[in-house]
């Protein structure tokens, strides 16, 4: 099932085109990453999927339903973790989750169980009675996540959930995203941190200036730009290195020797670092340093747009 399907979506704010003729499909069970610099249109896209913004042009289907056809059904099955933390500082953690879950129509025993499960899931069950005012940034974020998942939505949308938190809480959130996905939720994850998206997303769209400029798995995206890895091997002396022999190793495409650095360009599909190292050890050439340049999504973005994801 296609959880989200967007056709020719255009959204303007006055003169500014926030989204420009976007097409997008999200399959069930995916962790779908929206990657792009600030102002690329990620949050606008999400607000539109949630039905919070009207659109100027295009068609949007969520759970295979036109978004205006049954907005209540769609909203009931979406959980959103907004970019800005949306919790009440004067209510306890438990009360916060309770409040949001009851908005989705949970009652009585079901409500209590769901809230406890959600708090347990984010690791805040022993802080349930405490006020979020005294929580750290990371804990507030986690509580924010708990509020969004208590009603067990089919689609969870997380809009930059790791902005401004400590590495530990970040890892916790990334792990919980994976866990939620395993438990059956489809997840849309936006971020301008390339590493996070690379780590957890099964499919990625790179956005810029309101457009999706590339889409695919991490590997697909990288292969758009290049199909090689580059390894720099620093050795004590290059005497005795046979370029031709190195080129015979599977996957090696080109070899360059500069002073005492050997630059080996090899195909991305082949793992041959072990064989390369073996060649050097068999010749008794001491290796001083190995540096691998493996292209990542940052490389993709930089090559495609000439700019960096973050300034």
């Amino acid at each position, binding site marked *: 099932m296609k959880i989200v399907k967007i056709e020719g979506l255009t959204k303007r704010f006055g003169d500014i085109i926030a989204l420009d003729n976007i097409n997008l499909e999200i399959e069930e069970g995916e962790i779908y990453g929206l990657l792009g610099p600030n102002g690329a249109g990620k949050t606008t896209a999400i607000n539109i999927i949630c039905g919070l913004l009207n659109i100027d042009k295009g068609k949007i289907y969520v759970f295979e339903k036109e978004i205006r056809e049954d907005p209540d059904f769609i909203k009931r099955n979406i959980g959103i973790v907004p970019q800005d933390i949306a919790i009440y500082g004067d209510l306890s953690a438990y009360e916060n989750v309770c409040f949001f879950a009851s908005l989705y129509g949970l009652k009585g025993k079901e409500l209590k169980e769901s809230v406890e499960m959600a708090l347990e899931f984010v690791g805040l069950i022993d802080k349930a009675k405490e006020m979020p005012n005294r929580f750290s940034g990371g804990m507030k974020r986690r509580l924010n996540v708990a509020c969004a998942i208590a009603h067990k939505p089919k689609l969870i949308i997380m809009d930059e959930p790791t902005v401004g938190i400590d590495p530990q809480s970040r890892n916790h959130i990334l792990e919980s995203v994976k866990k939620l996905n395993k438990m059956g939720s489809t997840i849309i994850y936006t971020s301008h941190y390339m590493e996070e998206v690379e780590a957890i997303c099964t499919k990625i769209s790179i956005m810029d200036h309101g*457009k999706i400029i590339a889409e695919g798995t991490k590997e697909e995206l990288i292969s758009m730009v290049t199909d090689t890895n580059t390894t720099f091997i620093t050795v004590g002396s290059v005497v005795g290195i046979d370029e031709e022999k190195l080129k015979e190793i599977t996957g090696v495409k080109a070899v360059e020797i500069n002073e005492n650095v050997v630059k080996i360009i090899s195909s991305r599909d082949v793992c041959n670092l072990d064989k390369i190292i073996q060649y050097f050890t068999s010749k008794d050439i001491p290796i001083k340093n190995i540096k691998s340049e493996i292209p990542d999504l940052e490389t993709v973005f930089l090559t495609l747009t000439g*700019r960096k994801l973050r300034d």
Partner: protein
Amino acid sequence: MENWLILSEFFTILYLIVKIFLYKLEYPASFVFFILFFICINILYYIVGNKVVKSLLLLFSMAILIVSYVYVNEQFILLLPFNLYEFSNINFGSPFYGAAFILLVTIFLYKSILPEYILVSFMGCVIYNISVFSYKKMERLKNQNDELRKSIYSLYNKIHKNTEYEKQVKYTAQLEERNKISQKIHDNIGHVISGSLMQLEAAKILIDKNSEHAKKLIQNTIDVLRDGYESIRIALNTMKPTTEQMGINRIKLMVDEFSAKSNIDVSFVYSGPIDKITYFKWNVIFENIKEALTNVLKHSKATKVTVSINVLNKFIKIEVKDNGIGATIIKKGLGLEGIEERSESIGGKVIIDGSNGFSVIVLLPLEGEKNGY
């Protein structure tokens, strides 16, 4: 426009005549006289051109109507509104004064004729206004039409001039090429063949007397011909341009022309295996760069532009970037829309960024995804 007024005037006169004869009213002889008199004056009104004479005629006609209204038959007053409209139209340029006069006249009328008088005046007023309105509209449309025709004509001229110029350039280029080719044929083939001919002639004479020498000559000829064949092959190979040469050169030419015309410094770079770009894509690239450069000239106030073509693993990236004022709010005009349309029709993407100078990046897939290009 006047026709409608005349027509309604005619119907009013008809109405008067029918009414007079149906009800057998008095004074038929003088009635006929005054009706004819009125018609004559009004026809005269449309014949003369002088404005003053026209007004005088109208005043006279109105005087006749008032006299006949008082002395012959009160029905005559029904014709007065038409004269009043015409009078106010030629003297004040607006029928509203006429309407005011008409209302003024009602004060002096007999009650028996009053309703009819008002009815006729209002009908006249409506007809008159409708005709004025549509006449003005027609005038406007006619003017617009003329202007459009003029601009079409000038555009047509421009196109015609351009195609002429293009033809001229093409023809000159062809002549140059022909010249080069004939020179090459002369240098390579001409010499080889004429030399060989002479040697063969000599061999023919010598073949009986000194067959050894003749054999040597023939061998010589064979060698010369072989060399000649080789050099022709090389010449043909170098002469026939490859797709990427044609594409790159076309863009280089355009970029140079742009740079010369605009005083904007343009640098053009390319990298990667550009031979993978198909002829069709070269066309799209060419058009897009041209359009982007036009935009630079029109909007950017830039002094420097970089045009680059990079062939990546699965994409061709074409970028036109300037150092001008950029734009925080990008309004897509025909140019940018054209770039988008062309690129998207072959599965490409366009990234427009106005934050640091202005840059247009077009990403085209290397393998044709759509339409089999």
